[in-house]
């Protein structure tokens, strides 16, 4: 009996790259899902049944993580031993903090019943969405660079970018919740 693949990339039998062919990954996901579907092992030995079950579970986890570029990048960073950085190494730039502060002020005013605060919140949301789009374009470029160079410097840049993106993502969520 084979042992289970040790990481999400080996589940799919592919090299650990960041820029993935998503349709191809999805095709492979369906192929493997079918191949290891527990129903097909109904008459197999108990260890084989267990393996099919465990593999299917691992396959589902792998698909869920690798299909999304952000969670895929976070996964690969973690595999390479890079945990998310702390604020001391990667502080937000002052002009962004100014925006965040103003957003929080507007959110507080809205909670206090000032409906006029919705305008500034909507404008801030647009700006944060634009920032997120830009970060996603930068991320794609870093994916290509890492796959070509496989260097620690690019991984460091990627970690910094993902930290910033997470920050922006939280702001987007706060603004959207307030406006919904």
């Amino acid at each position, binding site marked *: 009996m084979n042992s289970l693949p040790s990481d999400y990339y080996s589940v799919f039998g592919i090299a650990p790259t960041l820029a993935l062919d998503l349709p191809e990954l999805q095709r492979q996901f369906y192929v493997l899902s079918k191949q290891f579907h527990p129903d097909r092992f109904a008459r197999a030995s108990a260890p084989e049944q267990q393996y099919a079950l465990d593999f299917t579970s691992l396959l589902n986890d792998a698909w869920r993580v690798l299909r999304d570029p952000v969670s895929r990048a976070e996964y690969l960073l973690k595999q390479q031993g890079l945990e998310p950085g702390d*604020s001391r190494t990667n502080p937000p730039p002052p002009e962004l903090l100014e925006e965040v502060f103003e957003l929080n002020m507007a959110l507080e005013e809205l909670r206090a019943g000032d409906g006029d605060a919705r305008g500034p919140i909507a404008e801030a949301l647009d700006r944060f969405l634009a920032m997120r789009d830009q970060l996603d374009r930068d991320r794609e470029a870093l994916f290509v660079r890492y796959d070509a160079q496989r260097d620690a410097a690019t991984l460091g840049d990627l970690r910094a970018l993902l930290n910033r993106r997470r920050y922006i993502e939280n702001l987007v969520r706060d603004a959207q919740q307030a406006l919904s």
Partner: protein
Amino acid sequence: MAYSNKVLDHYNHPRNVGSLDKNDSHVGTGMVGAPECGDVMKLQIKVNPETGVIDDAKFKTFGCGSAIASSSLATEWLKGKTVDEALAIKNTDIVNELALPPVKIHCSVLAEDAIKAAINDYKVKQGADVSSLVQAH
């Protein structure tokens, strides 16, 4: 997370919440934030030009109770100190005073960063004033 009584006191009755005119040449503004928790802290000082003593300090913090308490305490300590004395305030002083647990130490670091940023902004403004005077001559 159990907060200490001092944290709760500052959280429920924050001192010196508000803002000062950031365009005033004697006002220094520090804006700092932590990307992982989303906290953002604005701390301002107003320095008396005659004595060099911090006459007034205000803050506004969006964040957890410890971040609010840390900045509230910082403004209390800043008032009456000279700029150099203020620079000597360490995050560990805040940790000790508020009995912050290890996971909240970054809140005190944020407060120390805010103090330093505010003083730096004030000094830059003073330097800019001097250079503008020099240029005028």
